[in-house]
């Protein structure tokens, strides 16, 4: 018995070790970005100070602005774990924003009840859209990229129909804007929401069996079916969560702006979310997923945008620089690349010193 528990303990360490290993490269890239920023702008970059009862500072701002992307990327992580992808989240962002702002536009915006109703309505519709995506994928066998492409295209049109082609605004006095601009215990509300959703999803997937079953369905759908897993329900649930997260992200975005822009709200955010998921170590092939990795990926993307400005590059560099960082992370995560780049530094103790360093030449003789 003691032997068994012993084996369990070492194995547990092994698992944690593997997890850290997977996080290591993204964390190194993040640290490098932070160091560059600190070198250019000083320690103020990372150390927040308190103004008007709220934290401020460059890094806090990065986290606050990255909150919508975090929500969407977390939902995307679950969808990708099922071997799927959700391209519609940017459009759902816009729809969520449009519903809430349009609802409030004709009502008493300072009433907490009206704001709560607007938020609930937007989230419910977003969840419904997610469930629709999931149903198309799981029950009707539509390929995820096609199923969600439909709403990626149509979603912004729907958002425009909701707003009647206008940009509905919410007054600065409304409690709604607190979702984007407010602070609780000095910490900005979007950061609270991001942290809460992260914690909720970790609890939901790891204290229940949802996480394991998601990984099973994504890792081997046929084996999962034969093991008796209700994979359709689990797939729908993943898309539903992704939709809800996207709607919530839209609310934060709209609250921050005080308006809902159906055309540009959350534009291309689905691609940033996919990038964050991949940077975080979740494979697009489905299976194992890493919510913490995704979170690190989101912070990298958020920090990168600020870094470009801080080091004095013009904003035209935005996309190129992002591509370069993604390239570096992807390469670092590739064992083949690491072996190749590290080979000159590897100790050769185990290897007999070859008379000719190039084995091919040695053979040719």
């Amino acid at each position, binding site marked *: 018995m003691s032997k068994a528990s012993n084996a369990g303990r070492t194995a547990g360490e092994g698992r944690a070790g593997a997890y850290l290993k997977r996080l290591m490269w993204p964390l190194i890239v993040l640290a490098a970005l932070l160091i560059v920023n600190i070198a250019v702008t000083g320690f103020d970059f990372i150390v927040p100070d308190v103004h008007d009862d709220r934290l401020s500072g460059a890094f806090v701002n990065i986290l606050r602005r990255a909150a919508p992307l975090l929500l969407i990327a977390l939902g995307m992580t679950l969808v990708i774990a099922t071997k799927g992808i959700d391209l519609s989240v940017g459009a759902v962002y816009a729809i969520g924003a449009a519903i809430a702002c349009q609802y409030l536009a004709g009502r008493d915006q300072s009433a907490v009840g009206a704001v709560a109703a607007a938020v609930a309505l937007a989230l419910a519709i977003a969840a419904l859209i997610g469930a629709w995506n999931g149903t198309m994928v799981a029950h009707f066998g539509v390929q995820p990229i096609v199923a969600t492409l439909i709403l990626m295209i149509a979603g912004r049109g729907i958002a425009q129909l909701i707003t009647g082609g206008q940009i509905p605004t919410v007054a600065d006095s409304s409690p709604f804007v607190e979702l984007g601009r407010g602070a609780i215990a000095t910490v900005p509300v979007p950061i609270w929401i991001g942290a809460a959703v992260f914690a909720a999803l970790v609890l939901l997937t790891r204290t229940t069996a949802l996480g394991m079953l998601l990984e099973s369905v994504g890792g*081997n759908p046929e084996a999962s079916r034969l093991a008796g897993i209700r994979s359709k329900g689990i797939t729908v649930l993943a898309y539903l969560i992704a939709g809800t997260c996207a709607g919530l992200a839209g609310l934060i975005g709209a609250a921050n702006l005080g308006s809902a822009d159906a055309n540009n709200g959350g534009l291309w955010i689905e691609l940033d979310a996919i990038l964050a998921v991949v940077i975080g170590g979740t494979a697009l092939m489905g299976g194992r997923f890493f919510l913490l990795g995704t979170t690190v990926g989101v912070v990298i993307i958020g920090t990168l945008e600020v870094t470009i400005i801080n080091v004095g590059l013009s904003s035209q560099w935005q996309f190129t620089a992002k591509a370069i960082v993604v390239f570096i992370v992807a390469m670092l995560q590739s064992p083949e690349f690491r072996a190749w780049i590290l080979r000159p530094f590897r100790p050769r103790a185990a*290897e007999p010193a070859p008379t000719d360093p190039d084995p091919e030449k040695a053979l040719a003789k």
Partner: protein
Amino acid sequence: MSDEPIVQMTGITKDFTGVRALDGVDFTLRPGEIHAIMGENGAGKSTLIKVLTGVHSPDAGRILLDGRPVRFHSPGHAQSGGISTVYQEVNLTDNLSVAENLFAGREPRLGPFINFRAMRRRAQALLSDIGVDLNVAAPLSSYSIATQQLVAIARAVDIEAKVLILDEPTSSLDREEVAVLLRVMRTLADNGCALVFISHFLDQVYEICDRMTVLRNGRLVGEWATAELPENELIGHMLGREIEALEALERRSSAGGAAEAAPLVSAKGLGRKGAIAPFDLDIREGEVVGLAGLLGSGRTETVRLIAGADRHDSGAIEFDGRRLGGHNPRTAAARGIGFCPENRKTEGLVGELTVAENMILAMQASRGWARAIPPARRAELVAEFIAKLDIRPANGDLPVKNLSGGNQQKVLLARWLLIEPRLLILDEPTRGIDVGAKADIQRLVAELSEGGMAVLFVSAELEEVTRLSDRIAVLRDRELIDVLHQESDMTTERIVDTIVTRGGAE
């Protein structure tokens, strides 16, 4: 035969996450010899080959090729060094001609163009060198797997292979094809090529090999000349324990009273178009029903219908006297039907999940996602079944893909034993696994049925079917042609006889 080794590997060690696959293994290969690497699955045979061919780099040890230290970083690199490998699955292009396959990437040229005439001539010459006569202009796909393998060998040989590795080349070949392959191997060896032969078939190893190196649990057991190592000693070396286990499992006498009991599962006219003709089959508690037949006779199709893995389009299936509607894997599991499918990698296990997760998958699926098995209970169950089935390494947190075939099969079995099934369906549970695990699984089947479980069991090995089964359903051409139940009928001869005579009557 020169005594100067062409390949000398010393102290080769290779670790995978948490598993030491090779531990200080030595291997010596001399020109002109055919050298078998023997061992159970998981002994380290394929890892050793992969280290030699540059798929894996060793963590310790050295490799000398022709007396010079080498370290290959890819199979292509090894090939340019003179080490070629022919795998069980042929790595050639089906829709190109035989000649094109032989010379792909190094075609004879006529200016910028390919000189097809020269290519065909050289291809013909190359093949006749190894005693094979083919139409080299025909597409490769028009030939059998065996012939394709010979083409792969010819190609490897022509790229000046000093060392040719054959990894389970005979698994999918029939007797005559094996004979041709072995003859070609001998020709190559006589011409000075060194061959490494890996095979599960001991008779072939004894027929063709000059020497053998035996591995066990990643360690070298020893190297022998074939003539000096009798078969029973070889098996003893491979297993490292007495294999009485297999022999002790003499055919169990069929439970006399079982035939009177009401069937647990009863298939009535169950069938599926294009898969299996409608059939009747009863399975009683405490009974092992074996399915015998040739490849493609409908064995797998039959059990998949009973397991609910495929939908039937005719007939009905009764369980405990009740007719099952909407039979699918989930409802089947809920009623206590466990199914280990034929292909454990693609249909059985989720490779990147851990051993523990794979084990509890069916149990968790039946509870739904919201009710996770409590961690303590889960650890207890996993530890219990790892011990009970002797799964190695005994670590529930390893990714299941890191385990050897036999241990993977045990994990899959544990998944279903955890839900305490009333009917266990096993499709080829012992295929491609080592003798030790095979004995374990056969013993388990016998024990389970004695404990009252019904077992439906498919195996291509007739001896295994006859040894374990109380009754044997014989299939041919996607039709269940007979159910043997007399004690005297439980012989391989009788099954073969049934297949031949009953088939001929059609």
